[in-house]
């Protein structure tokens, strides 16, 4: 699914990355705890989060996450937007809550970047 389709499905606003709306995204990870993201998310996924601080952007950058969707209409600081622009991470912003955001995207074919936290050889998670 293209980033532009994710924008359309969630009535989202593009905050950073108008030039990257053509990138293809097939998986996602949703969390507000960045240690969980660092532990379990995989490169190339969409990060769905209610955390709108520079640390969310830096977490995405560390893992080569494709884009961030800020849900629940969280307010965005200029520091957050500046960091995303600097590190080249596209930011979408929606007023849908996380459950609705995830559900609508899953329905259209996006899947979790991992299914469960067990049964997976741990170090493969960031590969």
């Amino acid at each position, binding site marked *: 699914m293209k980033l532009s389709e994710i924008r359309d499905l969630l009535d989202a606003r593009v905050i950073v990355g108008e030039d990257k709306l053509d990138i293809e995204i097939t998986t996602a990870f949703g969390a*507000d*705890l*960045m*240690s*969980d*993201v*660092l*532990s379990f998310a995989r*490169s190339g996924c969409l990060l769905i989060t209610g*955390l709108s*601080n*520079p*640390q*969310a952007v*830096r*977490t995405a*950058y*560390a*893992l*080569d996450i494709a884009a961030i969707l800020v849900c629940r209409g969280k307010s965005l600081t200029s*520091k957050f937007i500046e960091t995303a622009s600097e*590190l080249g991470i596209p930011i979408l912003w929606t007023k849908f809550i996380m459950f609705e955001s995830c559900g609508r995207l899953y329905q259209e074919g996006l899947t979790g970047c991992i299914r469960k936290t067990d049964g997976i050889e*741990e*170090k493969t998670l*960031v*590969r």
Partner: protein
Amino acid sequence: MESRKKPLSDEDFIKSLEGVYHIQGRDFVDAGIVSSEVKKSLQGKGIPESIIRRVAVITFEAEINIISYAQQGTIQLFIEPDAVIIEANDIGPGIADIDLALQEGYSTADDSIRELGFGAGMGLNNIKKFSDVFELTSDVGQGTHLKSIVKLSG
């Protein structure tokens, strides 16, 4: 007789030292910036992206720990022919019970750390999980020393 265990000479130490990053305790605004800088400095050197991601995660959690608990600290990054090494040293309260600190979910974090999206007692576990070699020692009342080795062979 050659031994791979011999300590690095000063010359070798300087040769493999890629960067030294100073971190101020309680400087929450820029938390994570060292991880981003470390990642940038590893790119374009022929190191696999998957290895760089692991180093970035380890550095991120180590940086958050220094900011959260120590007065100040440093992260040193070394690139050796077969591994990337991250060393984090801080001046701070130290860790009285390392086994307890390594228990997933154990945390002494306050709200300012949790607001950043951390402080759930996962940081040290994440560092250990993404390291090939993990060493953690502490002198209570003085500080904590962390060494993490990520082998290039994975």
